[in-house]
């Protein structure tokens, strides 16, 4: 149990440090100080943990690096214990734990038990696979490579951030660009996909500009000043679409409400006319 204590302490030491250097799993944290075995994690560190690891392999790699272990020769018992401690903490803080974390915990437990057993005589033909840690080591290495690669990709000069594409204006193009035919359904599908992304990403405010209604109000007043009166349906510009219609309607209500205009109807079912209240 002493082992577990030391490792737990390493963890908290790192968390209380405030900064979790997830991006440099290569650097193991060196200092180890005795700490109590019941892990205390400060409030603001919780959020860091929740975002710190990209998955169980990321966490495992971090633990291995922190302890300066060799990926090809992992002391499974120790790592399994430290890993379990993290899982505990993550569960304690009610982090929704992905099943994958538990799967790796199970794998570690399995490997640990395999290593405790004497070599099975029936399995001698599988000589090369004798070390049950091998596959895990391979997975860790494969993931580690991708991690490093992603860091390099992140650092590459990028359009719109580090470099900007240069353009000059070409000669005026006499005709429209010819496209392959496209159907309305394609357009609708495209929008559905936009909506899905929009819903899945951080809340996006599709707020109407309040000014937009104000603009409409001004436009309606201006038109009425010119035309004296307008038929209800003449106020609306169908080309502005559904939202445009709604905004126009809102503008009308606002104008009526503030007594700037009024609506008249000479007979039941006859057209409604809008006039300026002078």
């Amino acid at each position, binding site marked *: 149990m002493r082992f577990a204590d030391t490792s737990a302490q390493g963890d908290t030491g790192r968390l209380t440090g405030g900064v979790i250097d997830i991006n440099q799993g290569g650097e193991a944290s060196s200092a180890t100080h005795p700490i109590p075995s019941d892990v205390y994690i400060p409030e603001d560190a919780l959020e860091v943990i929740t975002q710190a690891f990209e998955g169980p392999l990321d966490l495992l790699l971090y633990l291995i690096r922190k302890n300066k272990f060799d990926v090809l020769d992992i002391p499974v018992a120790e790592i399994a214990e430290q890993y379990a401690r993290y899982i505990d903490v993550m569960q304690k803080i009610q982090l929704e734990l992905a099943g994958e974390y538990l799967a790796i915990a199970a794998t570690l437990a399995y490997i640990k038990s395999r290593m405790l057993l004497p070599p099975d005589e029936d399995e001698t033909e599988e000589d090369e696979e004798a070390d049950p840690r091998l596959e895990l080591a391979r997975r860790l290495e494969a993931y580690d490579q991708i991690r490093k690669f992603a860091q390099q990709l992140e650092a590459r000069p990028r359009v719109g951030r580090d470099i*900007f594409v240069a353009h000059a204006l070409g000669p005026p193009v006499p005709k429209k*660009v010819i496209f*392959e035919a*496209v159907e309305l359904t394609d357009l*609708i599908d495209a*929008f559905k996909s936009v*909506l899905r992304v*929009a819903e899945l990403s951080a809340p996006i405010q599709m707020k109407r*500009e309040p000014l937009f209604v104000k603009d409409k109000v001004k436009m309606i007043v201006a038109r009425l000043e010119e035309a004296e009166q307008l038929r209800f349906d003449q106020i609306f510009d169908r080309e502005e*679409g559904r939202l445009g219609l709604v905004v126009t309607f809102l503008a009308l209500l606002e104008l009526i409400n503030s007594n700037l205009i009024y609506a008249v109807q000479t007979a039941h079912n006859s057209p409604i006319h809008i006039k300026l209240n002078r």
Partner: protein
Amino acid sequence: MPVSYQELKNITEAAILTAEVPVSVAQIRSLFPIDEAPERAQINRAIQEIQQDCETRGIELKKIGDGYRFQSRPKYAAWLLKLSELRPRRYSRALMETLSIIAFRQPVTRGDIENIRGVSVSTEIMRTLLSNEWIEQAGHKQVPGRPALFRTTRGFLEYFNLESLDDLPALDLLERQASDAAEVSESAPSQE
């Protein structure tokens, strides 16, 4: 530390070449911290020099309003027009998504489109939609920067065989379908 004259010239040229609209001297000045901003006269000198450098080249630096932009020399138009005929166009996913946002949420600014799609809108796509006369500018949004608003055109309705925008499916229906689909694919990621 103020930049050297050569740097100023380079920044001026790169700014005009990479901006999407003509760039004014004042705008170039505003790229620098106030206490290091070059004199207008210096920027004007840089612009003049760039214009001279271009004299034997295929492009020229032209003043448009109070801004500057590079454009190809008219004598090369014949070759360059050929270039625009060359490339067969495919509807890209980004183009269709951009068009659909304009159709369903009009009028919108580029920023609105960017917010909805979560990625930046390429100038190329906007240019293509404009030059195909599927969208048009519809004034400016009354917010700082007064960004241009875009809406679809009559040509858009004609192309998609719509009598009016009301013929587009209702938004709430689409939204419901979309979120259903999202849930399905979220909850069953392994069902590929």
